[in-house]
């Protein structure tokens, strides 16, 4: 199983609701469920109340300088 075909997921989280989601890192997995397991296991340094993952390929740049 080659890693070259795997998806990079950007991980965002927040500690409380008035706070915006912050970018906390990435995980590399071809399976969405495994990506969720990995994100929760890797970025557990804070008591997050929300964590989301987004496939990097779905992100569109609005500005690039």
């Amino acid at each position, binding site marked *: *199983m080659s890693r070259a075909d795997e998806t990079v997921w950007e991980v965002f989280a927040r500690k409380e609701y008035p706070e915006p989601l912050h970018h906390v890192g990435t995980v590399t*997995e071809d399976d969405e*469920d*495994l990506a969720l*397991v*990995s994100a929760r296991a890797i970025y557990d340094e804070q008591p997050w109340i929300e964590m989301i993952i987004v496939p990097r390929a779905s992100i569109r740049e609005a500005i690039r300088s």
Partner: protein
Amino acid sequence: MSTVRVDPATATMISLIGSLADNKSALGRRYGEWAVSAPTIESAVAAAAMAQDELGHARSTYPVLDKLGVSRPEDPGLDAGHPMFVISQELPDWASFIAANLVVDGILTTFVASARDSSIEPLAQRARKILQEEGAHRVHAEAWARRIGRVGGEDLALLRRRIDEMWAEAARWPGPDSDSGYAEAVAAGMVDSGPAAIRARVRDWLLPLVDGMSLDEPTDWSDWNEQYRR
């Protein structure tokens, strides 16, 4: 470990709870060994997290035995238990890790789910906490089964073989369905279902997940050790 004289239902629960803790301790060690050699760094972190969960579950389950009148050493040590033979040694390959995650973890967690509303209150409390954490183990097992299924070929053939090996022993862990002590434990509300029902739940989950498995009901109980459940 020594016990006061108890009724058959309580004796069965003592065996199940002690063996559950022994097997969770062994499973935690097996998961932990793969934290340094999993196929990806993400899998290594997941293995380490699952190892920590299992060892924590073992540590918090042993004291339930005290409530049932069992006297045991304060700190029995990691090698003191009698886990299933299939997880008593280092797992030889990643397919074995996933098979243990699917089958051994699956059987143990299904038993724990049957004790969620147990009349043994300390067990019910532990069960609810364990089930919260086991959700991620289940997702991990299912996702890896699907991934290996997509790859197919030798990887899938090896996973099937490892699942067969794990099932041959783990399916016996709940014991024969004719166990009268277990039936009394169900009647007393200590657990909500018997051995065959636990096996059926795990089988119903696994069969659609990995093609080509049979996962038969165990039939030969001639060498069954009720205390060590193997």
